[in-house]
């Protein structure tokens, strides 16, 4: 549940509509891959613009260009800033990629539900499966889990992308997560590449090849085609749909289930999602 309105910081007593954004300052930009940058955003007075839970999203806007929904890739356990990993693939993201440290963006949120890190996932062994920019929403969960390590069991991270150059957060994958006790990182790229001595092949095939035990909950994010085949692979391994979570991505404008864009069946992905368990996804009309 999100609150209807937030009290305005500069004008106490005045409530801001959820459609009205706040100004955020870009305080760091990291080039992750040739077409993905991670932007760190702070409130103008420092600190975070708002609190969120892993898997939630926010609308990022450049006035005069456009506004779109992005998952918040930083964990809520990070008390200093929020991050968005954004792939360059349209007018708005082109513009965002041209911004510099110190530039302003408008941000509103958080929107949507979140991964059930404090309920259904608590105490469980976790298997994260991500493809390409699909790591962005899962990274928030991974860091939340690692910062509350005692609340969760084993952590396996299987991540793949088109090429070694397209692996988002490779540094964190190899130098932080892979070195954390109880965490296994599996990386793969689609085609062989010079200088890459890791696994080569698509994520679903690698998933079957590694053959995870079903005493886990799987969290799955990536391109639709990868999700489809990964789910098949997980079912082959014996996972039930109740054990697998994913996020859906649809066009959004309002973020609060009113503008109609992300409506599928009786659900609004911006409000009732983006996180769905696969048995819940199955109840939706096949339109995602």
């Amino acid at each position: 549940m999100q609150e209807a309105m937030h009290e305005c910081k500069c004008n106490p007593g005045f409530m801001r509509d959820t459609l009205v954004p706040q100004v955020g300052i870009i305080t760091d930009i990291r080039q992750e891959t040739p077409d993905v940058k991670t932007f760190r955003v702070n409130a103008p007075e420092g600190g975070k613009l708002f609190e969120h839970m892993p898997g939630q999203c926010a609308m990022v806007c450049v006035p005069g260009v456009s506004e779109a929904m992005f998952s918040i890739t930083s964990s809520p356990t990070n008390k200093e800033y929020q991050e968005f990993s954004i792939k360059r693939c349209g007018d708005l993201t082109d513009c965002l990629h041209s911004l510099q440290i110190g530039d302003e963006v408008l941000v509103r949120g958080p929107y949507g539900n979140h991964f059930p890190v404090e309920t259904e996932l608590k105490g469980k062994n976790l298997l994260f499966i991500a493809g390409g920019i699909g790591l962005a929403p899962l990274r928030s969960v991974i860091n939340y889990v690692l910062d509350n390590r005692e609340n969760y069991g084993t952590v396996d991270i299987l991540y793949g992308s088109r090429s070694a150059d397209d692996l988002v957060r490779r540094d964190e994958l190899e130098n932080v997560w892979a070195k954390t006790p109880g965490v296994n990182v599996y990386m793969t790229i689609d085609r062989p590449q010079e200088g890459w001595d890791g696994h080569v092949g698509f994520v679903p095939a690698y998933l079957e090849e590694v053959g995870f035990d079903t005493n886990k909950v799987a969290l799955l994010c990536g391109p639709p085609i990868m999700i489809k085949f990964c789910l098949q692979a997980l079912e082959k391994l014996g996972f039930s749909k109740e054990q697998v979570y994913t996020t859906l991505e649809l066009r959004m404008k309002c973020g609060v289930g009113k503008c109609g864009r992300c409506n599928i069946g009786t659900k609004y992905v911006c409000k009732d999602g983006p996180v769905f368990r696969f048995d819940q996804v199955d109840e939706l009309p096949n339109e995602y």
Partner: protein
Amino acid sequence: MYRILKSDLPKLYAAISAKNDLLLPVKTAGKTNFALWTEDAVVDIEALKTVKSPKDAFFPQSENLYTCGKVDGKTTITEEERCNAPFVVFGIKGCDVRAIAVLDKVFLSEPVDSYYASRREHGVIVSMACNRPETSCFCGAFGIDCAQPEGDVVTWQAGEYLYWQPMTEKGEVLTQQVAEFLSACEDAPVNEAMEQIRAICNKLPLKDLDLSAWGAEAAQKNFDSPIWEQLYKPCLACGTCTFVCPTCQCYDIKDYNTGNGVQRYRCWDSCMYSDFTMMAHGNNRNSQMQRFRQRFMHKLAYFPANNDGMFSCVGCGRCVDSCPAHLNIVKVIKAFGKGEK
């Protein structure tokens, strides 16, 4: 019950207008639509249906949300002022009053849309019974009684008089403001008028429109039906049905660069348009069949499932009258009627 001679209505309009913005059916270039009353406006309370529904009064076709500017290189955000003065919408028919209740479910559910809420708070609805329901009307199918609509004030036309009955506190306040033009009277002429209206309703061709194939339970069932593939074909994707519809609430949010800042506004949109769900990585409804299906599934199945069975159609019949391809929600409802699954 009160009444006023219809020939004295201009005085009533002027009195309402003195303290409130007054919106009412006005004829312009041969078409009647809700517009602001002025002394030279051609008021047309005889028209059964306005071309566009009065939803503009609460959910305007286009409205500014906020304006971004720059001061000393810093971005400023100035919110658009919310509605803060009373206004009256006069002559809304029963179907359109119900449509506002449908919009309330959308905009007043959490998180509340403060732009819409401010208009609902300040708007007074003066409804009017329909003297001559037409063949395209089917409000009865949704349990709406056009002889006795809801509203803050309900009015009836009978003989030389307009009858006036306040129903809510807001309605009482308005009635007091214009009390000098109203005289107390008996209910009998109104009861007679209502009987006549209901007699007409009983003869309407769509009075027995069967909705049993629709509602919350239809959400799963009707989606996969092969009927859609045939049904959607005449659709031109022009979006006319959504723009005349009193319950369609899909909207877009866009930027307008004023040269001295950026206005962020929202405007009506249509789920029938091909770019409605278009994203950088694709379009989840890339055929017109899918978009057509979405519009009707939403009104007749998804919305009822989320709102205690309330349909997001009120039977006003505007889409029946205005679709250039003679396609409409009645055809869709009937296509899934008895015997066809």
